[in-house]
């Protein structure tokens, strides 16, 4: 596979071999017990007895085991995303990934026991250092935090802030309250002080129904509908004044798509004009703030019937500096660097999406 890609002389393959930053890679443990050595004895015992208690009640049989590519199961056993060797072979070497950002989706922020969640998050971050960042210099990681308790989350951010291999704070697109609410503000202060963006990734469960209209029935709805929660979260961050309160804060929306953002900016600008009384703390048109402070990863890319419409959309969005290419390895809807971006997204724009924007945001040398 690696050899084929290296020999392919098509323009698409050649451009794909140019250095790439992958802004969304999912590493995991081979089996849950692999985290135990990083947990204090007290929590290890609790974990063995009660497991991870989180908000139940929104489970969907998924299309693929572990929602993964069928070829991503490591030959040595364990879950997709748990083998660094296979990740090198299928992703880092295969596509000349210069930097890849690890976003482990291990639910520490969703644990109902907040103190356990904090220990769990700390263990995940220690595990990332020991088993991913130390052995593989191309990898960077997001900081897992117990985000429903801001003081505990702040402590974890501060614990990692000195390690430059941690490049952002990881939150989920579904939380107990909209992320603009004041309970979350201390985290933003800590991220801002550390010079780290906040990353909001697909998923999470805050305990309320997963949509404003209750719980849907199918994984199709869960998957396609996640874009609506990203819209809710961005609306909250803008209208609750987070960007005014934290002028250095940048936010990355990960795995939420991006085509919805242009119409949302129209809607937010219009609402802001109509309800200025209520939003007196929001001092600028929302679209101005978003165009300066909000970044989005590309996968999953919306696919219009004519690819030209995607180029036209990006022209109108005027956010070419804020889109970050991502593969979502090892998940089933993986975007390959040479195929995911349609040819109409070419030239300088392509290079910015594939590499330069992420290097600037995450301060890669």
């Amino acid at each position, binding site marked *: 596979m690696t050899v084929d890609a290296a020999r392919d002389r098509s323009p698409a393959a050649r451009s794909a071999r140019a250095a790439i930053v992958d802004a969304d890679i999912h590493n995991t443990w081979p089996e849950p017990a692999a985290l135990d050595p990083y947990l204090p004895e007290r929590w290890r015992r609790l974990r063995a007895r009660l497991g991870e208690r989180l908000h139940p009640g929104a489970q969907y049989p998924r*299309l693929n085991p572990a929602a993964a590519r069928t070829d991503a199961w490591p030959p040595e056993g364990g879950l997709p995303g748990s083998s660094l060797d296979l990740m090198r072979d299928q992703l880092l070497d295969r596509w000349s990934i210069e930097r890849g950002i690890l976003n482990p989706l291990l639910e520490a922020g969703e644990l109902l026991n907040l103190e356990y969640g904090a220990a769990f998050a700390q263990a995940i971050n220690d595990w990332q250092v020991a088993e991913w960042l130390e052995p593989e210099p191309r990898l960077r990681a997001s900081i897992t935090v117990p985000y429903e308790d801001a003081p505990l989350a702040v402590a974890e951010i501060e614990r990692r802030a000195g390690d430059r291999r941690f490049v952002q704070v990881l939150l989920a697109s*579904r*939380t*107990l*309250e*909209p*992320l*603009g*609410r004041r309970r979350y503000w201390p985290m933003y202060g800590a991220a801002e002080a550390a010079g780290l963006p906040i990353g909001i990734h697909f998923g*999470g469960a*805050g305990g*309320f*129904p*997963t*949509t*404003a*209209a*209750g*719980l*849907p*029935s*199918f*994984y*199709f*709805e869960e*998957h*396609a*509908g996640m*874009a*609506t*929660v990203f*819209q*809710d979260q961005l*609306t*909250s961050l803008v*209208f*609750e004044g987070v960007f005014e309160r934290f002028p250095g804060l940048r936010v990355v929306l990960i795995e939420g*798509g991006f*085509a*919805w953002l242009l*119409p*949302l900016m*129209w*809607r*937010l600008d*219009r*609402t802001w004009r*109509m*309800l200025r009384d*209520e*939003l007196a703390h929001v001092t600028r048109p929302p679209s101005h703030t978003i165009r300066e402070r909000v970044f989005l990863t590309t996968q*999953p890319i*919306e*696919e*219009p*019937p004519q690819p030209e*419409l995607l180029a*036209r959309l990006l022209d*109108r969005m005027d956010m070419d500096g804020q889109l970050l290419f991502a593969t979502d390895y090892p998940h089933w*809807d993986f975007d390959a660097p040479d195929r995911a971006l349609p040819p109409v997204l070419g030239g300088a724009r392509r290079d910015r999406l594939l590499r330069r924007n992420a290097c600037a945001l995450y301060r890669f040398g």
Partner: protein
Amino acid sequence: MVRRVIDCVVHAEVASVDQLVPHLSPHWQAVVSETGFRGPYVATQPAGAPTVCAPRFARPDGVVEASEPGHITRVLDRWSADAGILCCEYAVDGIRNPDAAAALASAVNDWLVETWLPADERFRASLVLPIAQPEAAAAEIDRLAGHPRVVQALLPVRSAAPYGDRRYLPVFAAADRAGIAVGLRCGGNPGNPPTGTGWPSYFAEEHAGMPAVFQTQLLSLIAEGVFERFADLRLALLGSGFGWLPAFVWRLDKEWRGMRREIPWVRRAPSATIAEHVRIALQPIDVPAAELGAVLDELPADDLLMFCTDHPRWQFDADDDALPAAIPEPVRARIAGAVARDFYRLP
């Protein structure tokens, strides 16, 4: 050629529960008088919000500019409209007592039929339903099914479960039997938060977030196969805007191709289902004028939009802006009336 105009959203608002009392049974009349019940508490549509009543329609005497038939007659006259679809948003869905919700819904509908429809022959009615009790909602549709000027069952877009959920099948079956459209309107009081991630602080967030709820409902109705089950279902999105629709459909068609084996009864791309079954009220135009041409071009069908004033909501500043000059002919003429005439099967 005389342009045909149909206003597909004009509001008919209950100003006081006293207006409904004559349409209530003696039992519920007694409840209203003995308990001091003043009707549903409508958190999602604060009466003073400019989005709910445009500043230019606010009256010093406090009378709501959609509480009497004469108010709406003036709107239809202004546009020389042939018909206006009355939408009443009385929030019976927020009343948890199932019998009270059903009694109030019936009273509102009788009030519309007996006091509004006779006042102007151009009026058509939408039914208010006790949607928290789908069986009762279906019975209410059946009760008024024969009325020639009832054209739509109106559901709040916020709900306890997405409307594709099988618990709501009786409602769609009743609308199908009655041959009326199903309309989704902004707001709703199901008890769960107005976002998929909890309760926001500001009304502005609820307001800005409303299109996302319409997206959720559309996704549900498509995924659950409701349009396959009811081949004649006509679904109106009233107040959703449409700027979001192209990006939403691009994503949906892609996801359907990737995930259709989970929902094998969905046999067509979502864009094709929307093009056939769904129509959208023109207002609010949540698209800047300079972008309107591009968005119209990207919609999944030509005849998707239906003119409305959305009176007395604040969607535009000058009356003429209800049908903006930026929309080119011949699309403009169809939006003005032809699409709604076909959709609501008006003469």
